[in-house]
Every structure is written in structure tokens, then in C-alpha cells.
């Protein structure tokens, strides 16, 4: 196989093609609403790349998506579909928020406590679903959908408790203590011209990406989790406790969902508002995982890409273009990635069964 052919057939190349077509489809819809695609995409990209501040905002927006993407990717690799990342994110944020408001602790210690609490809450949310599955055989997709909404209202309930609630008239919690925040030092932010919400979150995301890679590829735990995901019966035959594996996989996945909530809260959110609608971080995490083909490095890059498009795309409103075009683009990209194996750029022809 020639080098060119190798490049043409790589997943990366296919993803790039998918993204290009995604933008082309987006352009068609922009034309429908009478907006020049060139102008709109110029706005999109200039919003992303115009200065260090906007770039750092993209990273800030990408951070929770990367971590959620890792959570979803991890679940994919272990044979469950973590559609419950939304709920884990919400309970994680709330746990971090409660600790960040109420626990008196010094800087550095407090953020660690917050993140630990978030991980525990997210893991618990995952384990409940896993327990329902192994104990009563309840389908995890079903219970995750339910637990996403239960998390939503639980968060609203807690945010409304007098000890947590904002003293002003905002329908939100108090701000977490300054000591709980994981922002970069002020001097760095000023000298580099970053946004005020630039935080260590991206580093946490990078560390988690490495951790996920190691667990999946380098440990026997990862091996048994993958085995159960691949073929449960065969794995059990091979001496792996499948129920235990499902619980562990959901706990790890859930913990990451929770950490994603914590980093978002301690980085940019600072408080939790009473929700009026689901924020759909969970589904955005699924998108990040899909762009990255469930590979930790891929998810990291995919999350950055999505974060940037999300940030830049929301600026389309400034020139009167509908920001929903971003959803059209991302939907198209994911759709094309799903069928990307048909972009078969073979240099020599080869007959394949089923291909018309």
C-alpha cells in the first residue's frame, strides 16, 4: 500500500473530509437564510482565532466536552452507552458546588475536595444505574434517561435550599469560595492576554485522557472491561466477573462525568443556576467522543474542535446568522463519520460484497 493510499484511508483524513462536507452543508443552510457563508464562516473563525483571549475561551468551552467525551468514550469501549453523562455532569457540578460553598478549606486543598466530591457523586450516579442493571436486569439506557432528569430536579432542589441559595434575587446558588476556583494565576492571565476564566481544567482533561488510555490499553482491568464489552458470555467463560466489570465501568465513566461538572463549575461557572432546561452537556460529550472515534487522544482533539466551533458559532448571531447552523454542521459531521468507511479512496479497485 502506498503512502498516499495510507493517508487517504486513515480515520483522521476521513474525519477531515467529514468536517469539510459538514461546513459545505452548513453553507447551504446559510444561503437559505440569505446569509453569505463566506461572511458567516469568516465570523466563526475570526471569533476563534482573533486573539489569545478568544482562543483561551475556546479551550475553556472545550474542557468539559473533552472530559465528558472521555467518559462516553470509555463507556463505548466497555460496551455500555453512557447516555447518562448529562446526569453525572449535573450531580458532579452540584457536589462540587456544595463543597465549594460550605467546606472551609485552604486553596489547593479545597479544589481537590470539590473534584473528589464531584467524582464520587458522578460515580454514584453511574453505579446506581449499573446496580439496577446487574440486580434487576434493567436496561441502562432507560435508567440513564430517567436519572438524567432526576439529577436535573435534584440539582434544582439543592440549589433552592436556603443554605446554598444566592442572597440576591438571582435564581442560583451562591458563588463558590475563591479558594475553590482552579483559575490560572492572575499574572499569567494578564501577561498572556487570556480570558478571565482560563483555568487548570484543560490540564485535568489532559491527565484524564492519559489515565483513560492507560486503563484501557495497559491494564488488566481495562482488558477485562473491554472483554465484557466485546462479548459478555465469552468473558464470563474466561473467568471474568461480568457484573463487577459493568459496575466498575459505569463508576469510572460516571466519575469522569462528575469531574467534568466540577472543572466547569470551578473554572467558569462559579455557581449553579436553577435550570429551566437541560444544558445538554452530556450529548455534546457524546459528540466529542464520536469525533474522536473513542480514542483518548482523538477525543481530546475532537473536544477542542467542538469547543472552538461552539464558542465561535455562538458569535454568528452578531452578524445576524442563526447560531443553530452549528448544530447542522456538527450533525452532518457526525453523520458522515458514521458512514465514513464508504469514502473508500482505494487506488486499485477491489470488489467488496454488499457494495452496489
Amino acid at each position: 500500500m502506498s503512502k498516499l493510499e495510507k493517508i487517504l484511508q486513515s480515520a483522521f483524513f476521513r474525519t477531515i473530509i467529514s468536517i469539510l462536507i459538514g461546513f459545505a452543508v452548513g453553507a447551504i443552510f446559510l444561503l437559505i437564510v440569505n446569509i453569505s457563508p463566506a461572511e458567516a464562516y469568516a465570523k466563526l473563525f475570526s471569533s476563534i482565532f482573533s486573539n489569545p483571549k478568544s482562543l483561551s475561551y475556546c479551550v475553556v468551552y472545550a474542557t468539559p466536552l473533552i472530559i465528558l467525551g472521555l467518559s462516553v468514550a470509555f463507556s463505548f469501549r466497555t460496551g455500555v452507552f453512557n447516555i447518562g453523562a448529562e446526569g453525572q455532569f449535573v450531580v458532579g457540578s452540584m457536589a462540587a458546588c456544595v463543597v465549594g460553598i460550605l467546606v472551609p478549606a485552604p486553596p489547593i486543598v479545597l479544589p481537590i475536595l470539590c473534584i473528589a466530591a464531584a467524582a464520587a457523586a458522578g460515580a454514584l450516579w453511574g453505579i446506581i444505574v449499573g446496580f439496577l442493571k446487574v440486580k434487576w436486569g434493567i436496561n441502562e439506557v432507560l435508567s440513564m434517561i430517567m436519572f438524567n432528569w432526576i439529577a436535573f430536579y435534584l440539582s434544582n432542589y439543592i440549589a433552592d435550599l436556603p443554605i446554598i441559595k444566592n442572597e440576591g434575587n438571582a435564581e442560583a446558588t451562591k458563588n463558590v469560595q475563591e479558594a475553590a476556583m482552579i483559575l490560572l494565576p492572575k499574572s499569567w492571565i494578564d501577561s498572556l492576554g487570556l480570558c478571565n476564566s482560563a483555568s487548570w481544567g484543560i490540564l485535568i482533561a489532559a491527565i484524564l485522557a492519559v489515565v483513560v488510555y492507560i486503563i484501557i490499553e495497559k491494564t488488566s482491568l481495562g482488558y477485562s472491561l473491554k472483554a465484557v464489552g466485546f462479548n459478555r458470555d465469552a468473558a464470563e467463560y474466561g473467568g471474568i466477573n461480568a457484573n463487577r466489570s459493568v459496575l466498575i465501568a459505569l463508576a469510572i465513566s460516571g466519575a469522569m462525568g462528575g469531574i467534568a461538572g466540577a472543572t466547569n463549575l470551578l473554572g467558569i461557572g462559579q455557581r449553579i443556576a436553577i435550570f429551566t432546561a437541560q444544558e445538554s452537556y452530556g450529548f455534546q460529550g457524546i459528540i466529542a467522543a464520536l469525533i474522536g472515534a473513542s480514542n483518548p487522544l482523538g477525543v481530546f482533539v475532537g473536544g477542542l474542535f467542538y469547543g472552538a466551533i461552539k464558542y465561535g458559532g455562538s458569535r454568528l448571531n452578531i452578524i445576524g446568522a442563526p447560531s443553530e447552523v452549528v448544530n447542522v454542521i456538527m450533525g452532518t459531521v457526525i453523520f458522515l463519520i458514521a458512514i465514513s468507511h464508504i469514502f473508500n479512496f482505494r487506488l486499485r479497485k477491489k470488489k467488496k460484497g454488499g457494495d452496489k
Partner: protein
Amino acid sequence: MKKLIALLLALVMCLSLVACGTSDDATTGDAATGDATTEDTAAGDDAVAETIKVGMVTDVGGVNDQSFNQTSWEGLQALAAEDPTFEVSYLESKTDADYASNIESFIDEDYDLIICVGYMLANATREAAEANPDQMFAIIDDNSCADLPNVACLMFAQEQSSYLVGVVAGLATESNTVGYVQGQVSDSMNQFGVGFISGVLSVNPEATVLQYNVNSFADAPGGSTAATNMITNGADVIFHAAGGTGNGVIEACAANGVYAIGVDTDQSPLAPEYVLTSAMKRVDNAVQDISKAVKDGTFTAGTHLYDMTNGGVDIAPTQDLLTEEMIAAVEEAKAGILDGSIVVPTTAAEVPEFTLAAAE
């Protein structure tokens, strides 16, 4: 099949290249102008005298919330249509964490005035206003930033408008039972309810007001159920302050042949035969006023109260379903509010006292 795909791809590549090519040019252009203007931001008032850029940041309800975000945006659009010196745009916040970055985007684009819609943006507005003392801000429904020298707090006496529709409801009810459906418990939502109840009781002390909080602005079936429940329990006029949930309320009222009362905008088009009237909150007037003030150089910070006296709140202009008696009562109540003889309560605790006083 393969040929088709290849053709498609080629087309796409060309398109994207075109898009990318132009985007590069525009990007550098944008950046250049951006740099140029940042340097003389302080003296920017003279330089940008030709266009006044007004940016609006929505809360998480989004620009089509059928409530204050939408009214603000419609106000700005109307302003830009009538006076081309105004250039208006908005940014939607999807989550609570988006407020700061949206405000910053407008600052970076050298907007003359940034309008933050809703009390949820109070913290973000305060931070941005303190960090950018030369930037003019306006915030709707919040008074906590009134101490800052560059923030205009646009406050609305919404209880006055809901008082007026309450008067209408109190007169319209034959069963002496009216309903109030709200979308969320919050200070400003509660003020709607308090004003409404006071209005009802002022003309009809015998009336019962049924209340229900659907806990969502997007649950139309929930609104329908709550309204049907009230109707079954005897209500024949129902007021809502519940955004999209209110669609369900109006729907249920129409289905049962009773009157509904809309909120924020004139909601008569939703069901012309059944929407009796609406409690209007003229956020559109307020944002136009403050934008014009920026143009004329008369921008002032601090609290700007919009109430009956300056047309900030009012009853809907559509009065097809109102009887002479109702219109007269509304006019009387308006006069009372204007001359200060009626002070509409803003908290539930004040209602009993107010009703007693009104009965005397």
C-alpha cells in the same frame, strides 16, 4: 456511486476553499479594524458617531422566549429599522456560564451599549462593568448594579400591569374564581402574581385566586393540565406568567371556553376569542430609550424605573373582549396608580393589608 461521491467531494472542496479563502481576508480585515479601534476606545464616542452599536445578551431563555428577551430584541430591531444609525445584534446564552463570555465579545467588538437581559446576569454585568469603566451597560430587572457609574438598571413595576389585568379578571369572573399559573418561583415572577391577586381582590373581594407553579417554561401539557384543573375547580379567568408553558394555559382556556390573560406582550393573536387581555411589560420601550440616550449622549447610570407613569408597563392595546365597565375600571385603576392613591403591593405579605384598605 463512486463517481457520484467523487463529484460531490470535488464540489465540496471547491466550496470550502472559496469559503476559507474569503474567510482569511475577512479575518485579517476584522483584526485590523479591531486593533485600530481599541487604541482610541476612550475617544471612541466621536469616532463612532455615525453608528451606535447596541448589543444584547439574553439569559438562558434565549431570544425567542416570548418574554423579556424577545421583547427586548423586538424593541432593538424596531429601533434599527426606524433609525439606521443604530446597529443592533444579540448573543444567546445557553448556560449560566455563558454570560461573561458573551458580554466580553461585545466589549471586544467595541459596542457602545451592552444590554444584559435579566437579573441572572447581575454578577457577570457587575464584573464586566468594573473591569471596563468606559463601557456603557444596561441591565433589565436588576437593581443591584445601580451603584456603578456605567450601568443603567432598567426596572419594571410589573405588579402594576398585572394589577390592571387583575382588575379585568376580577370583573370578568362570573364564578368568583380566577387562576394564576406561573413558570417558576422567583421574585419577579412572584410580583406578577401579587399584583394580579391585588387587582382581582380590589374589585371583587369575594374572589378566590387559585395558583399553580408548573416549574417549567416549556411544559405546554403541564400548563394545559394546571389550567384545566383550575377550570374544573371553578376558575373562569386564568392569568399566566409562564412563557411556553403559557401556550398550554391559553389552549386549555380556549378549549373550555373561558378567558385567558397573557403576559409580557399582547398575546391576543394566540387565541383572539379567548385572550381577554395581557399584562404588558414594555421592555422594548426601555431598551429603545436607553439606546437613544446613548446616541444623544444623555446616558445616565443608576436605576431607571419603568412604571405606569412613563409607559413602562401597561395593559394590552387589544380591548375587543373588554366590556365598558372593565375599561372604565382599568382607567380608574390607572389613574389611581398614576396619582399615587393606589400603591400596588410587591410582596405576598402586603396583599391582605392592601385589600382591606381597598375595601374601605
